[in-house]
């Protein structure tokens, strides 16, 4: 008669003996290397291609999209003052023929200014209201014009879109579950290193422009002192007093303290005076800002 029996199965046939942490270390490291490499490549090539699109095409596309920048009822005196300051800075920025900037003002109390596609610069009331003098304003403006000069808005868009597409393709279709969010973050943080390099390069151009316009760089760093004061006054961002290692790595902008040091270094590099009299903002500047 047939004998039937169940024997105890060996424990390592269906289950690996490799420690899960070892498996994790191997795969996490490999995935991180893959994502960082892809992000770097995509940022580089996306930016490279976007920068080769002629500025005139970029301007036409921006106009065709027709996004209205700035407040409709912005005080015209303030807008023309900002554009006039921009024109005064342009000779010191070495803008190539065919490139220009258009400066807009928004009445939102946002502590920000940015350069976007088509040479458009945006200044918010929140930022303008804390600038102590024209030199500090010129520093921000020259910094944003330098972004236009370097084609940074186009490069950021091109690199960002290429990175996002590749990461979505990589993590979205592979059934990676919770890992996809972390890998996407790793890709984004990698992209931020590119942004930070753009900021450093723009600062250098801005210092030279401010030094050229006023004959010295006095007050150029006051912008960053204002930013630091604004942050410690209750912004949700981490204060520069004690930035975490991760914040420092993941930030799009260099630390304010580092930027102040960089201004001094750039001034020295270009043989600029670091001391001099600052130029006041127009008498009506605060009145323009207060206008509803």
């Amino acid at each position: 008669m047939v004998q039937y029996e169940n024997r105890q199965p060996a424990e390592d046939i269906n289950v690996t003996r490799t420690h899960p942490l070892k498996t994790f270390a191997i795969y996490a490291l490999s995935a991180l290397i893959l994502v960082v490499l892809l992000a770097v490549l995509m940022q580089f090539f996306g930016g490279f291609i976007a920068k080769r699109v002629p500025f005139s095409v970029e301007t036409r596309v921006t106009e065709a999209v027709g996004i209205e920048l700035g407040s409709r009822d912005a005080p015209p005196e303030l807008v023309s003052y900002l554009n006039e300051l921009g024109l005064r800075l342009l000779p010191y920025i070495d803008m190539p023929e065919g490139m220009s900037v258009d400066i807009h003002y928004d009445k939102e109390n946002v502590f920000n200014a940015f350069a976007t596609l088509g040479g458009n610069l945006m200044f918010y009331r929140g930022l303008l209201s804390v600038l102590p003098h024209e030199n500090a304003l010129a520093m921000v403006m020259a910094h944003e014009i330098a972004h236009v000069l370097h084609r940074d808005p186009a490069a950021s868009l091109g690199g960002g879109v290429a990175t996002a597409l590749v990461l979505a393709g990589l993590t979205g279709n592979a059934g990676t579950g919770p890992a996809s969010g972390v890998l996407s973050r790793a890709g984004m943080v990698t992209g931020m290193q590119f942004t930070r390099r753009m900021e450093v390069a723009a600062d250098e151009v801005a210092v030279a422009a401010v030094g050229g316009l006023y004959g010295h760089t006095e007050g150029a760093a006051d912008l960053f002192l204002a930013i630091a004061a604004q942050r410690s006054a209750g912004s949700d961002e981490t204060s520069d007093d004690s930035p975490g290692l991760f914040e420092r790595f993941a930030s799009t902008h260099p630390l304010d303290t580092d930027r102040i040091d960089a201004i001094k270094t750039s001034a020295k590099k270009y043989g600029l005076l670091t001391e001099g009299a600052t130029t006041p903002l127009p008498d009506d500047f605060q009145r323009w800002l207060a206008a509803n």
Partner: protein
Amino acid sequence: MIGLSAELLIFVALMLLGYGFGSLIERRHRKSIIRRELELNRLPAIASRRPPEDRPYAQQLVSGSVVIGSDYFKTFLSGLINLFGGRVTPFESLIDRARREAILRLKEEARDIGASHVFNVKYETARIATGRVPALEVLAYGTALIPAADISRSTHDTSQA
């Protein structure tokens, strides 16, 4: 908005919790499975469809079903492995435990009705949707053979159940 550091902290906490509790539960479960298997090996569960014909047997359907959830660590690691391919080892141990637990539950039912064998044993699996961390159901079923002398007891027992 949560800062990047906070997100990283939550992620690390979930991974540590998943790994710590997941490993502890897995170790305890595996220990329990081995102990109960040693007890129930005397009641063979056989895949064959041809039962022994040495004596008359009553036949009854028995089943064992289990749902086992993954943990965050296993799910995360399996996601990483999916990028490259290869053995998804974190889920292999999960499925191994689920399969063996389902058979044990089947055998426990068979033992309780006085069966000497379970024949024609089959498995079915299903993924239970529980958000981003999956859970798995394994169902084992088969035909319990109850020797003729035990039929009356089995009938009595099952009617009480």
